[in-house]
């Protein structure tokens, strides 16, 4: 404290004249007032939306999709505590969700205890199981970030996935572990027989976990996680052990991953090796990166987008994973900020009140680009069908049009669509760039 008082009593230092002097009090004061309040509005909107969603999308399959989405959101947010907030790239994070889920399944099958446990409390056990595993693994894996951490995470991930056929008592071997959530003690009369009951249970945990994870990022250890991510050495010279900061993030992340696993157990009532393996770990990395690691809400967008791809697109085409892969590569190469980064790029534009300058150029470039890409996707489908369909089965349907894949005409049409669409997009791209520069430059100023 003495430091601060002393600092306050110091006269204002002489500032060299050549440096820019804007009015310091104004903006700084406003920011200070603003920074004292944790923004409540987005949370209220999110909660209201979650409550209302089942009234908009009423059928059971939509609710199933939303349940999966919510679980993925929690898992992706937990994963981003490592990747985005703490700078730790994990290739084996599915094991924390998986172990949490398996543990919940065992609690479910532990009938005497489970009969006295209200189901909404079950995910807590998953969280504790995930956290316990993270406590052990983190004690050696967080010693350094970077490649060493990534390799250890991969190794541990493989190790535990391999255990699923070795430690059959816990992981249930190849058929996994299944149970019945309705044996829990009824929660205010609700027995969770319906998908919609489960939906609200998951929605409750989604809001709670997301809020807690957000608040965690606002605490001293959460802030230092960012600092350690950016510059571990400097953090050490500020009194913080980079390793312990990483460890705390890791343990917290394990907890929330375990919560997601517990919710998975409730929703599907079965866990198998698939919940632990590297493929699942890869998916969560993809989801998080697609959404954007740089912003807290990035993984939320990523989880929504990916779940839609996975569920809606997979009904349309067998090749959905291929498109997801292409999207991921494109994200890494062209917009590393992810979907959230793309959205947030536009904040300055709106702040300058120049958003309408972008509408026409966007239509001119992005619409043909989208049509061209769809044409390209149609070609991919055509090739796939041509090569893999059973002999004699020449009929296929792309974009609600049925035609003969061995005929030359659809090839010509799709090549033309792809070529013209992408061609127009390429032609108009420079003017879009120009419009973008114009829209991001304050009037009368240069950047």
């Amino acid at each position, binding site marked *: 404290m003495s430091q601060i008082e002393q600092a306050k009593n110091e006269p204002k*230092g002489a500032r*060299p004249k050549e440096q820019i002097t804007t009015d310091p009090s104004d903006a700084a004061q406003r920011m200070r007032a603003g920074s*004292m309040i944790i923004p409540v509005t987005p949370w209220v909107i999110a909660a209201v939306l979650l409550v209302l969603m089942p009234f908009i999308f009423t059928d059971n399959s939509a609710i199933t999709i939303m349940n999966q989405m919510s679980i993925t959101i929690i898992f992706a947010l937990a994963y981003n505590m490592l990747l985005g907030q703490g700078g730790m790239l994990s290739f084996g994070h599915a094991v924390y969700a998986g172990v949490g889920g398996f543990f919940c399944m065992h609690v479910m099958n532990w009938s005497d205890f489970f009969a006295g446990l209200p189901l909404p409390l079950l995910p807590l056990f998953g969280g504790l199981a995930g956290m316990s595993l993270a406590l052990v693994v983190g004690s050696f894996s967080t010693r350094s970030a970077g490649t060493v951490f990534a390799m250890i995470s991969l190794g541990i991930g493989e190790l535990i996935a391999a255990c699923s056929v070795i430690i059959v008592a816990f992981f249930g071997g190849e058929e996994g572990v299944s149970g019945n959530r309705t044996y829990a003690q009824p929660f205010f009369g609700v027995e969770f027989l319906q998908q919609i009951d489960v939906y609200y249970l998951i929605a409750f945990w989604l809001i709670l976990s997301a809020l807690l994870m957000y608040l965690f990022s*606002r605490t*001293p*250890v959460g802030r230092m996680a960012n600092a350690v991510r950016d510059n571990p*050495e400097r953090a050490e010279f500020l009194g913080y052990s980079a390793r312990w900061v990483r460890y705390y993030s890791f343990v917290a992340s394990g907890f929330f991953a375990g919560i997601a696993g517990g919710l998975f157990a409730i929703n599907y009532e079965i866990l198998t090796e698939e919940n632990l393996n590297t493929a699942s770990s890869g998916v969560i990395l993809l989801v998080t990166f697609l959404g954007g690691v740089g912003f807290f809400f990035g993984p939320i967008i990523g989880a929504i987008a990916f779940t839609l791809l996975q569920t809606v697109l997979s009904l349309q085409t067998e090749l959905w994973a291929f498109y997801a892969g292409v999207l991921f590569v494109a994200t890494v190469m062209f917009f590393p900020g992810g979907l959230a980064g793309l959205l947030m790029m536009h904040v300055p534009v709106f702040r300058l009140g120049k958003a309408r300058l972008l509408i026409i150029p966007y239509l001119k470039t992005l619409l043909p680009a989208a049509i061209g890409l769809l044409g390209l996707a149609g070609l991919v489908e055509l090739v796939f069908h041509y090569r893999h369909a059973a002999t004699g089965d020449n009929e296929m349907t792309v974009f609600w049009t049925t035609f003969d894949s061995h005929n030359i005409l659809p090839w010509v049409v799709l090549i033309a669509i792809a070529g013209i669409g992408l061609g127009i997009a390429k032609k108009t791209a420079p003017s879009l760039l120009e419009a973008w520069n114009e829209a991001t430059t304050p009037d009368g100023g240069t950047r």
Partner: protein
Amino acid sequence: MTPALELKGLRKSFGKAEIIRGIDLSIGKAERHAVIGPNGAGKSTLFNLITARFPPTEGTVKLHGQDLTGMQPFQINRLGLSRSFQITNIFPKMTVFENVRCALLWSQGYKYSFWHMVNRKRDLTEGAEAILEQINLTERRNLPAGVLSYAEQRALEIGITIAGGADVVMLDEPTAGMSNSETDYITDLILKVTEGKTLIMVEHDMGVVFGLADRISVLVYGEIIATGKPEDVRADPRVQEAYLGAALEAEH
């Protein structure tokens, strides 16, 4: 009285090359001490040994009489020793304000807390703002630290270094690569923020050294060849031969 910092028989070898060849040095409380020497003399290595960035091959470092052997940098920092770096070492993606606030967290006792909200802590906000005021970066408060000008980043680095209230402050070439006016500005800043503290600095700019330091040590090839008041050191023929002469030659 125990000295603020005491080095005894400090040695450091990298493989066969001995970079620091037995240093004994004692720096009193509230003393401003400059370490000078030609390039490659081992000044930065000496700093890194004191702050445990590297372990010494031999010898001890004592801070307020406490032996620092085997301690990690963060433990040494908690004992009240803080340092800056020759290459600007800040958190480039975080805002200027956050940079300073992070530097306050440990010393204000928040440790690894995950139950305090940093935004709601008036002591943190006001403390960080007081530091920003001191280093004249209030107007840059909400910019990412990475976009500041070089001199501003150096000022921020000094701010981060002193923010924790450490009573022993080590600055590694705080004015390196600066224009004359920037150097004057940083020198004034250092004088202001290290009031009443022990300051140990490595510096090439003789103007800064003679303007700031109470005592000077001259390091040549890993050994201290002279320690004393600026005027005595300046008059020392060995120093003139080994360092000042060489430096003058280099300038011509």
